[in-house]
């Protein structure tokens, strides 16, 4: 089944001549791009191309050495330190290594996002977490700890955690790396599902096959520069919404 989500052409992310340097090493060079609201974008490139750095700049885990970045109208060069947590709540972040807290149960890991955002109603948090865990198919493992889950299961929990705060943008850094094809398919299906619900999805991957299978737009990076940007393709959605 091929679906095309309703893309709002107004950009949610804008980058103007962005550079990132680590000492003498140039990680990103003159990056200028727009990502529209509810767009599905892949950032592709080999290892060391600057994919992860570009993602980190967006949620201000790293600061640009030069240039301007606007996220949902906020200029990241001017954002005060105190406002960074509020910027990050616009994002749902999925890491290659899942980054789940080993001392917290699955339920607690997902609930953390809601609690961090100031949600104090325990019943509402429990309800929301249960609903998310059931969407990602992990409801029956809610009391398990991350170390007792497979990689695919951990990544499903990470997806649930990423979308818990109803983020406007989902960022996934190599979300399927190290997963078997079935688990990778499940993760991609989940991401497409949340994209269909209105989120902008940005995925960093070196896997071209994955991009071809999914659709969307691809930004190709090479040695920290944009090599080329493809025209957006329809999202191939096999999931049931």
């Amino acid at each position, binding site marked *: 089944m091929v679906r095309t989500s309703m893309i709002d052409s107004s950009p949610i992310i804008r980058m103007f001549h962005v550079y990132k340097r680590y000492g003498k090493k140039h990680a990103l060079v003159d990056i200028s791009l727009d990502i529209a609201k509810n767009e599905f974008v892949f950032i592709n490139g080999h290892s060391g191309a600057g994919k992860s750095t570009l993602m980190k700049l967006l*949620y201000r*885990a790293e600061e640009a050495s030069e240039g301007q970045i606007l996220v949902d109208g906020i200029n990241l060069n001017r954002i005060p330190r*105190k406002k960074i*947590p*509020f910027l*990050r*709540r616009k*994002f749902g*972040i999925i890491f290659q290594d899942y*980054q789940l*807290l080993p*001392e917290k149960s699955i339920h607690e890991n997902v609930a*953390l*996002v809601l*609690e*961090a*955002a*100031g949600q104090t109603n325990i019943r509402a948090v429990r309800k929301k977490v249960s609903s998310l865990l059931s969407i990602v198919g992990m409801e029956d493992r809610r009391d398990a700890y991350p170390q007792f889950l497979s990689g695919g299961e951990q990544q499903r929990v990470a997806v649930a*955690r990423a979308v818990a*705060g109803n983020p406007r943008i989902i960022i996934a850094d190599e979300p399927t790396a190290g997963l078997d094809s079935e688990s990778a398919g499940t993760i991609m299906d989940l991401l497409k599902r949340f994209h269909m619900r209105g989120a902008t999805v940005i995925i960093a991957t070196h896997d071209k096959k994955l991009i071809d299978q999914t659709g969307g737009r691809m930004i190709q990076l090479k040695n920290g520069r944009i090599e080329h940007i493809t025209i957006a393709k329809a999202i191939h959605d096999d999931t049931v919404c």
Partner: protein
Amino acid sequence: MARNSFLHIITITTIALSVFITSAFILCLVNGQTFMTSCKQGFHMMAYIKPHVKAADTSSISDVIQSIAGIDHVKFISKTDALEWLKKRMNRQAGLFEGLTTNPLPDAFKVHIPENVRNDEAMERIAREIEALPSIENVEYARKWIKRFVHVVELIRFAGIALGALFFLAAVLIVANTIRLLLYSKKREIEIMRLVGATDFFIKTPFFIQSMIQSVAGSLIGLFGLYSIYGYISARVPRDVSTELIQLHFLSLHHTVLIALIFMGAGCLGCGLSLKQFSKS
């Protein structure tokens, strides 16, 4: 929590010891000051009459003493009354008086000095003037030992302030170290919390609460330890010694709350320092 239980125990123990030692000094100081106040309230001189002076002359001597500037009132104490009073006070050592055939005590005047005149110069002048009277053998008052006691109380005060400051600093540093170690052990958790949009307030509050709990627990243990030792000592002070002058008191509620609050402040300060340092790193 359990993983870091050793750290918590060390922190609470250090705070408890700091509170215990600081409070012990404050307790000594408070009781010393109470004792001084009692001394000053009941302050008097004893003017002992020469043995050959007739009882009929005591009234006129009393009038002469009363006329000396700076004296509130004068009371005659006969040697019989003095011996009776001494026997009452030393009833446990009654055997001492059994062999007495004559009363060895002299007649005396108890000279009360008003509070505004109780300074060294005035006291010495009054004592000199009374001693100059031909019927008076000598004059005694507790000037020297009160002076010495004032020095001891002052010494305790300074030592208390110095040690209190030292232990406050120790509490700040030990809490700071505990929190620093906790922060490093939870570094990954904190980083993830930051990435999911947790504010500094959300991240830091549990550490502040933890250091406050440690401070309160340490303060309570320290104060309870001091109270137990105080109870043990005060129960063993002989009743002969425990007169109106020496009445031991434990720290007031005001003092205990203040001590607990100061060490809670130390805990928060230590925690704040570590969090600030951690935020910068």
